């Protein structure tokens, strides 16, 4: 039915997109792994990062990839502040409260973007957006290749931070046993905020990698966050390698089901995976703890 070339090209594209999805899911899974909360504002924060990349480009002519260097620290600080000043104090330690507060944050951010920028869809176009690399019979989009590489690099950095640095050790200690960690003299509130900040910084990177080929509007986060939830659930909540593998898998599934079912039904594959994983194996394919 489909020639192997088309199928393989779809798979390559799926994997390339999947890596960026993984990057988006990374922040979500990191926050879940440490704070044990599902951050519903994740998509909205991504949308605001994408607007920031767009704004820097349109107003100051900053290249999206360059914007990452600026925005990653800014979003780290924003995330740190939001966790420290809003989510932490307002939740009073109750998981149900956190769920509702991050929902409130997501509604707020999304509509603030709507109020500020209107509902128009915007994009950055440069020559590089359409650049391609030829690999045998396949045409591969250069910005996506950059996105793929960027995602792998960030994942590696994050993995390094988590497993090799003192900060990472503290984070892991808090993730395992927050009471014990606080008895050992670790400032749990600080670690939570750092983790949340790291998640947001990862989103800023993702935004920079996405914008050359993608568009942004205030509602764009919704599409990504559903995918990110699926990846996190699939990879096992809290697992960094799980997020990467889950992201690549989901990218493949989306690309192939888009090819076979068409644009409008393409997303269905993702939701079916999501529902099945939740119902049959809520700990994910790579997660150990319930």
């Amino acid at each position, binding site marked *: 039915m489909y020639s192997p070339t088309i199928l393989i090209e779809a798979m390559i594209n799926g994997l390339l997109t999947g890596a960026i999805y993984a990057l988006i899911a990374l922040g979500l899974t990191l926050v879940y792994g440490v704070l044990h909360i599902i951050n519903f504002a994740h998509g909205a924060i991504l949308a605001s990062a994408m607007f920031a990349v767009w704004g820097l480009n349109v107003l100051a002519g900053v290249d999206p990839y360059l914007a990452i260097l600026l925005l990653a620290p800014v979003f780290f600080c924003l995330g740190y502040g939001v966790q420290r000043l809003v989510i932490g104090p307002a939740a009073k330690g109750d998981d149900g409260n956190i769920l509702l507060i991050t929902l409130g944050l997501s509604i707020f951010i999304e509509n603030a973007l709507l109020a500020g920028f209107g509902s128009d869809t915007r994009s950055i176009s440069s020559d590089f957006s359409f650049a391609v690399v030829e690999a045998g019979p396949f045409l591969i989009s250069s910005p996506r290749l950059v996105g793929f590489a960027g995602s792998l690099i960030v994942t590696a950095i994050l993995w390094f931070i988590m497993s090799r640095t003192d900060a990472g050790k503290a984070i892991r200690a808090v993730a395992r046993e927050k009471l014990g960690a606080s008895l050992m003299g670790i400032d749990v509130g600080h670690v939570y905020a750092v983790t949340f900040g790291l998640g947001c910084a990862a989103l800023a990177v993702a935004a920079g990698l996405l914008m050359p080929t993608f568009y942004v509007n205030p509602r764009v986060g919704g599409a990504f966050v*559903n995918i990110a939830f699926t990846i996190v659930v699939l990879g096992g909540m809290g697992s960094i390698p799980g997020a990467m593998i889950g992201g690549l898998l989901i990218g493949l599934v989306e690309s192939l089901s888009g090819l076979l079912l068409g644009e409008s039904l393409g997303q269905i594959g993702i939701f079916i995976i999501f529902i099945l994983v939740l119902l049959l194996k809520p700990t994910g394919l790579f997660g150990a703890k319930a």
Partner: protein
Amino acid sequence: MRFSGYIPILVVTAALAVVPLVFSSNSLFNFMVMSLIITLAAQGWNILGGVAGQTSFGHALFFGVGCYTAAMLQFHFGVNAWLAFLLAVAAGAAAGFILGFLSFRAGLRGSYFALITLAFAELMRILANASDWTGGAAGLLLKLNPGFSNMQFESRASFLWLALAFVFIGLVISRAIAGSRFGAQLVAVRENEDAARALGVDVLSVKLKAISLSGAITAAAGVLYVQNFLYIDANIGFGVWISIEALLAPLVGGRGLVLGPLIGTFTLHGLGELTKSFAGRIPGIDLMVFAVVLIGVVAFASGGVLGLLRRFAPRLARRIAV
């Protein structure tokens, strides 16, 4: 206690019912109709999410099932509107039962349950957006044909009364549950499932009843929406907006309380209109206010408006039995 518990319901309903007799502003009527439809959807949410403590982020699933069942039965088969209404409510209950059977049996709770409700709503939105039966992205338009037997009304006031009648039924159901064995079991499940089990409560069956009833009531709100606007598409029926409205209202009004959804909806939408009149028609400004109110309620007033009333005017609060 028996009857007196229903007095606040009667008073509130009567107060709302006289509005069309005193005022004649169509925009006021439209505001009230929309608020009543949302109230009804929120009453459905409140039984599951408020009383039984199972937070749903996807009540659009039931709203949409109600919308589309009513619309499709009328559009494709010319089924009478009232019969379509009954079938839509049954479909909402069935959707609730199926979702509950799958997720509660799998042991999903808390965030996981919230996620799966969201996923089901989104799945249905994509399907409704793609299928010919549902009119695809263009949606379904029902024929304008006013008349009681078609559940359509020429006068705005009549439709307002219809919506109010539904909300009244919702209030009576909520009130009856609050003073019953079933209500006590729902609360027990919310507070501590293991303790409930030890006292002989069949937790799964109680949750299934709650989600089916919840689905039925929210589906009824969907039917009202369709009969009011005579139009439905996927982003309305299964859209995130109604999931959020259905959840916000009870939280703001008073989670798990009989009058919570009604008070929450009117508080929120009153605030929304006020903001719009001050800030002009900036898109999204009302929802920004809603979000701030939600965070404020969670942080400072977990009992919502009625909880504040209980704290600052305990006498009055006891009088209206919140």
